[in-house]
């Protein structure tokens, strides 16, 4: 399903002060794309992502996933929409520290259908953690994990309900360069193998280079939107990266 925005405007009002964070964005992202949203701090990247993902519907204009129009959904329908169709990865990981990695991954299942009827959530959680390389840390709690490991748990969680799109707001923002790269590789792999649409926000050019399409936002407008061949730094071999992660 394609994700599209038409005439998307978002104005923040706090008291007298109004900020127009998005001023008329038109955009279509096809199913299976690997998109970077780039821009300087305060340019409106997060706002755009929140509007596209159904986290924020106080916008003017229209956002649609396939035939579903987000602005016409009730709060409950929106919650269901987020549960079923999208996954989220945040810069701050947003894991619950009192839960184990496995419990964090299956958390979405507490609020809805989860991975679907008849799927054992714990089994699925273990599979997902194994897939992101944390098969041996199922019962560790976030404070015992490194930044990269935490973000892997978050990625596994975002996949729990089989989303068609994953939204990532600066997923590498809290990680060092190499760890960030390994997370990006994970996304690339998910995009390639599972055909999950990945939309991520970054302000670091070399991370943006890894996408196959790059959208630049400035002052709430798209000033550039073009396809590109993804460029991966070749100085980070897998073994190297593992070493660093163990060390961290």
């Amino acid at each position, binding site marked *: 399903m394609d994700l599209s925005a038409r005439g998307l405007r978002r104005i923040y009002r706090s008291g007298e002060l109004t900020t127009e964070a998005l001023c008329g964005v038109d955009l279509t992202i096809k199913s299976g794309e690997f998109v970077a949203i780039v821009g300087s701090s305060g340019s409106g990247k997060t706002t755009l992502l929140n509007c596209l993902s159904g986290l924020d519907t106080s916008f003017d204009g229209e956002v649609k996933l396939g035939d579903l129009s987000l602005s016409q959904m009730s709060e409950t329908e929106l919650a269901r929409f987020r549960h079923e169709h999208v996954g989220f990865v945040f810069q701050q990981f947003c894991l619950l520290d*009192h839960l184990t990695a496995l419990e964090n991954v299956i958390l979405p299942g507490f609020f809805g259908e989860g991975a679907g009827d008849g799927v054992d959530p714990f089994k699925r959680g273990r599979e997902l953690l194994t897939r992101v390389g944390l098969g041996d840390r199922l019962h560790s709690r976030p404070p015992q994990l490194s930044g990269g490991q935490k973000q892997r748990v978050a990625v596994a969680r975002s996949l729990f309900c089989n989303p068609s799109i994953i939204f990532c707001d600066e997923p590498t923002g809290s990680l060092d360069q190499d760890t960030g790269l390994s997370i990006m590789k994970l996304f690339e792999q998910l995009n390639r193998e599972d055909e999950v649409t990945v939309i991520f926000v970054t302000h670091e050019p070399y991370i943006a280079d890894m996408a196959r399409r790059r959208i630049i936002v400035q002052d709430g407008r798209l000033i550039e939107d073009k396809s590109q061949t993804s460029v991966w730094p070749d100085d980070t071999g897998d073994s190297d990266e593992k070493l660093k992660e163990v060390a961290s």
Partner: protein
Amino acid sequence: MKGQRFSSLIGQSLRRNRRHFLLSGIGVIIGIATLFFFTSLGEGVRTTVLEDVFVIDQLEVVDPAAAAGMRRGGLFGGGGLTDHTVEQVRQIEGVKEVYPKMKLTFPSRASGGEALMGRNMGVEFIADGIPAEMAADDVSDILAFRDHDQPLSCADDEACPDGRDCIDGTCTPRSCDPRDRASEPCGEVGFCDRDTEICALPIPLVISPYLLEVYNGSIHTALRDSEGIGSRLPRLTEDMLVGFEFDIVFGHSYMGRSGDADSIRHRARIVGFSDRAMQLGATMPLPYVQRLNTEFSGEDAADHYHSLLVDTYRNEDVAPVAQRIEDELGLELSDRHQRAQRAGLLILLITLLFNVIALVILAVSALNITHTFSMMVMERRREIGLMRAIGATRRQIQALVVGEAAVVGLFAGAAGIALGIGAGFAVDAIFDSYVGHFPFKPDSLFAWSPWMFALGLTTAVLFCLIGALIPAVRAGRVEPAAALTGR
């Protein structure tokens, strides 16, 4: 959200925020402990006062004329309480049985007591009579509580009581020699009457437990440290008194004598303790009183009862039956009933007063819960935002907060009840060791019944839920986008 997952989420959250929840629950624990303590205390005291002191489930109808101090057959011509009245009361719906009571209408005295008290004593003897079946269950003595002068039919000597032989199908008293003390011709409970020289049985008496309580709790306590014989009086138990015999002189007392006939001396024996016995006196089977009254006060006295005890099927019937007795039959209830109602009301009011205090404590702790939970919601804003992002609805978030409050309420309620019971035991122990014996001193001041546990738990949960209402609404309002970006 399925129940099981929901409760496991709540469990995880409670475990993490243990200290917060404990702090927020303390007020509720204290409030519930107070509520439980005073409710069970009030109930315990009420039970003792109403059931033991006033015997509230038993109605006593008195003759209005007699109650007003007028002679029977006087101004109102009520004619007193007769068998007809008994029948009328028996017809009232809810009445199980009516027992007429009649007092001795002439002076008498009792003497004896050496076996118990160490010396012989004499006192005014006040007694009434009740149908024998009323106290039959309370009697444990070998001498049954019934009219022993009523001719008994029999098949052989075995069927007759002590000192009687079966002659022509009737138990007939044996003749005996009153000077012969060795052979016990009249059996174990019988005795040889000095005047008639035939075997007789003592008059069986039942005594009210109240009398024993008054003696042990007041008279004995008051005289214990005195000089003179009072200090040597023993504390009495029911066992000591059952089987105790003494003499009664009918028709002649320390205060007066009956004009109509010569006095009669007769032996009496205490055969048991009964709530049905008169409180300050002794109670014998009705036929004795009827015969004695006829003899000393004339035929008329034997037809009029002094009061009627009314048993109802259920406790709830007491009030309506009392109402109908007063309104429809124009009869009066003994003031014991009114005093019981007044005492019950007073205790209820005091209990309510303390429960209001408990409710104030609970209200304050509900505010405390509001405060703590609001703080927790603030602290967990990002977490709530995340939950909303991954699919939690507003309602689910609210339910989570409310659920946590309910669990806190359950635990706090249980802890409060435990504390209340503990305090009860402590008070009982202190009371027991510092307060001496008094009439009707109960084993425990408290009465714990299942409904109080239910009340404690529901109240605790209720107040926690009320307290968590505002925080829950706030939690539901958390906007995921703003919460996740930390705004």
